């Protein structure tokens, strides 16, 4: 299935990508993170276990075991620091 993936703030800068559409064969947010980690380099580094990042699926922050539906908008970003 296809996902639209967005990156924000420090992760957007580190990855050098603001958004992309990708093919996804997994089921959960954790599966997507694994797929991105497999790219190696900054991807493996920033998304390693224990690193602080957040995942939103269709604009709701979710836990890593959340299901990711086809055509979902998934965002990956650092802990928020507004206000």
């Amino acid at each position, binding site marked *: 299935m296809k996902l639209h993936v*967005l990156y*924000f*703030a*420090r992760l957007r800068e580190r990855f050098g990508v603001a958004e992309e559409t990708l093919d996804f064969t997994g089921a959960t947010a954790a599966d997507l993170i694994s797929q991105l980690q497999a790219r190696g380099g900054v991807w493996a580094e920033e998304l390693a276990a224990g690193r*602080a990042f957040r995942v*939103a699926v269709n*604009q*709701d*922050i979710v836990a890593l075991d959340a299901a990711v539906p086809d055509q979902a908008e998934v*965002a990956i*970003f*650092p*802990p*928020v*620091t*507004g*206000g």
Partner: protein
Amino acid sequence: MKILVQSEAFDLGAEVAALSQGRTDIGAIASFVGLARGMNDGSGVQAMTLEHYPGMTEKALARLVEEARSRWTLLDVTVIHRVGRLLPGDSIVLVVVVSRHRGEAFAACEYLMDALKTRAPFWKKEETQEGERWVEARASDDAAAARWIEP
């Protein structure tokens, strides 16, 4: 309920007047304004840039306001958060809560700020003498937000 994400400055007095004018049922107006400081974590900050997640931001803020309204009896709420480049002394965020009694207005206003700090998709990047840096999330903000979790 009014929720805005904008680059322009806001006017606290005008926002409070818009919430309260012509009403005689409001007893309490609690408000908060957050400002950009010229010093953070020991470094001079020349400017900061606020990035957000368009689409999700408004949705996340609306949810926080709905949570506040379900916890306390509120008459109205305004939340405005600025994005883009801001200078020290510039306002960043405004929360105004109006209610009959002060306890509810104070609690909801502080709740909204604590929730916004940990759950609304905004990120700050500071320009300092040593270069640019993304502001790290604070454990104290997580602790402040955790106070509101009901057992």
